[in-house]
C-alpha cells in the first residue's frame, strides 16, 4: 500500500446532489452513532464525483458532525475509496501475505514496465489506475487481481498481459 495521506484538491467545494442528498437523509436515522455515517457518506461522494477530494472530506465531516481527522482516517484506511480520479479501469493488486508469497510483485513490476503504471497512479491516457490493496479474501487462489470489481485469480504476468490487452482493445 502506498501513502494515501497526501490529499488532492478538487478546486471546488463539494455538496451532495439531489439523489445523494435524498439517500443521505434516508440513511441518517439508521446511524444513532453519527461517526458510523462517515463511511456511507464517503461512498455517496465517490458515487457522485468518482473520487473523494479534500473538499468532499470536509463536507462529510460537516454533514456527519465527525472530526475532520476521523474522515481522513477512514478514507485513507480503506483502499476502496479513491482519493484520486481513477482510470477507466481500476486495477487492484492484493499485497497481503498469500499474494505476497505468491509473488504479486511480479505483477506490479509488469505493470510498471509495460504500462508505466505504479501503485497510486493513473496511466497517461487515463485508461488504467493501480492500487495495491490489503487482503481481498481469495488467498486460496493467490495472487489475486481485481479489475473494476471483478476478481482474476491465480494470476501471472502472462494472464495479466492478456487481460490488459483485452481491456485495451475496448474503444475509449
Amino acid at each position, binding site marked *: *500500500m502506498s501513502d*494515501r495521506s497526501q490529499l488532492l484538491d478538487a478546486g471546488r467545494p463539494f455538496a451532495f446532489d439531489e439523489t445523494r442528498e435524498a439517500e443521505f437523509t434516508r440513511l441518517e436515522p439508521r446511524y444513532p452513532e453519527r461517526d458510523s455515517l462517515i463511511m456511507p457518506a464517503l461512498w455517496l461522494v465517490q458515487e457522485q464525483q468518482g473520487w473523494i477530494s479534500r473538499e468532499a472530506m470536509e463536507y462529510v465531516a460537516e454533514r456527519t458532525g*465527525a*472530526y475532520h*481527522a*476521523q474522515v*481522513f482516517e477512514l478514507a485513507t484506511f480503506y483502499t476502496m475509496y479513491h482519493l484520486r480520479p481513477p482510470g477507466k479501469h481500476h486495477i487492484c493488486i492484493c499485497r497481503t501475505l498469500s499474494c505476497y508469497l505468491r509473488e504479486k510483485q511480479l505483477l506490479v513490476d509488469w505493470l510498471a514496465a509495460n504500462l508505466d503504471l505504479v501503485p497510486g497512479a493513473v496511466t497517461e491516457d487515463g485508461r488504467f489506475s493501480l492500487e495495491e490493496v490489503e487482503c481481498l479474501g481469495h488467498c486460496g487462489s493467490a495472487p489475486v487481481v481485481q479489475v473494476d470489481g471483478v476478481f482474476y485469480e491465480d494470476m501471472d504476468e502472462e494472464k495479466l498481459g492478456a487481460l490488459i490487452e483485452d481491456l485495451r482493445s475496448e474503444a475509449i
Partner: protein
Amino acid sequence: MSEKVTLSVNGHEVRVAAGANLIDALEAVGIDIPHFCYHPALGADGNCRMCLVEIEDGRPPIVPACKTPAAEGMKVVLESEKIKKIQRDILEMELINHPVDCPVCDQAGECTLQDYYMKFDLGDSRMDVAQVKKDKRLDFGGGVVHDQERCVLCGRCVRFTRQITKTGELGIVNRADQARVAIFPGKPLNNRYALNVVELCPVGAMTSRDFRFKQRVWFLKKTPGVCHGCATGCSITIDHHREKYKDARIYRYRARHNPLINGYFICDDGRLSYHLENENRLETPLVKGVPVTPTEALDAVRTHLGQAKYPLVVVSPDCSLEQLYAAQMFCLEHGAKVSGYSAAAIVAGDGDDYLIKDDKAANRPSLNLLGIDTSREYLREALGHADLVITLNNDPFTDGADADLSEMMKGITTIACATHHCEFFDNADIVLPIASYSEYAGSVINSDGVLQRFGRAVVKNRPVPELLELLHALGGPVADMGAAWAGMRTAVAPLGAVDPDKIGEHGMRLEGL
C-alpha cells in the same frame, strides 16, 4: 477503590486495589508492566500489546494487563519465557522502521521505547529491506512538531484530542506499515492544551517547538512545583539546570499528577509560563534609578519607614501564604495598612470549564483567609492619606481602569519589592529585587481551597532575597517559614490543624474556608 484483593505475581503474593486494571494495580505496589498505549487518563486501548501477561486460571492464556481487572486469587505471570518473547517481538516490530536517531532525539533519556529496548530486547536488527520512509518535522500547530518515523502508533495523542479536549485534530491515517499520525490538511492543533500530547507521547514523535534541542533531559533537575499561571494552581515539575559558565534557568514545566487539582495535564499557557521566570527579571537594587548595594537599598528603605506616618503595603495575590502572613505582621509592626487589591490579574472570559481560570493569580484565597482587604475602596481610601507605599510585587496602578489610583500615587514615595521589570516598578523611588516562585519555598491555596506546598527549585548564581527574608530584614517579626506557620496556626482557624510538613505532594483541601 479501598477494597483490596490478594493475587500472586510471579509466585509472590501482593495486596492490590480490587477492580483496578493490572497495570495500575501492580504499579501501586511497585511492579511495572511495560506498556505504550495505556495511560490512566485515557483508558485502556489495547493496541500496543506490550502489556500482555499470562494468567494461570484457565482463561485465554495471554491477556493485555491494561484491560484485565485485578481479581482475588489471580495468578499473574510477568516473567515467563513466553511473555519475554512477546516483549522482544513487539519491540523488534516497533523498531523495524524506527530511525533510531536517539543521539539527536529530545526524548532520549525519558523514552519508553529506548528504556524497554535496554530492558527487554537488546537484539540486533534482522531487517535487510529498505525502511519505510515517512514525514518528519511536521508542524502540527500549537507548538507541536511531529516526526512520523519515530511514532509507535499508540494513539495516546489521538485519544487525548478526542477524549480530553474534544477537538479531534489528530488521526491515524493509512494502514499497516504506512500508518501515521496526521492532522487534516489545514486543520492544525487548535486547543489550549495541545502541548500535553508532547508529554503523553511515549517516544520522541511529538516534540515541543519550545523545548526542541534546548537541553538533554538527563541534565535537568526535576523539582516539584506549583504553576502560578492562574488560580487553578496545577501541580507541575520544574525542570531546571545550570549550564557550565551560565546561570541556572528553567527549561520546561511538565504536568505533575495531582488527582485533587489537574489530573495528569496542564494548559499550554501554564506550561510555557516558565519563560517569565527566566526573562525580564529585576536583579539589582536601585535608589532613584541608581544601582546600589543591597545593604544601601535596605538602609534607604529603613530611613523611609522610620519617617513615614502612614505607610501602606500593597501585596500581590501571587505571594505565598507565608509571605502574605509575614507582610501582615510586618504591617502590624510598622503601623501600616495592607491592601491586596489586584483587579488587573483577572482576565474576564479567559477561563474555561477545564483547567484555565479567569483569575491569573495563584493565591488569592490566602488573602481572604488572612483577612487582607482586597477591595478597591479600601486601597483608594488608604492611598488618600498614605505618605509611603511599599508594593510587594503588586502593581494595581498601571492598568487603564485604575488610572485614578496611579494619579493618586504621584508624590508618594514608592518602594517596589518586585521580581520583574515593569514601568511602575522600574520608576519606584527604591527598587528591591526579590525571588520569584521558582526560587523560594512556600504554600499557595488554589481557587478550590486546595493548599499546596512547594520547594525551592532554582538557585541563581546571585540569588536575590526571598520576600519573607526581606521583610524580616526590614523589621518584620516573622523570621522564617517555621515562625510563619507557628503564627498562622494560632491566628488563622482553618490552618489550626494543618501540619505544614504533612501536606504531601498532592496538597490538601482546606476545610472552613
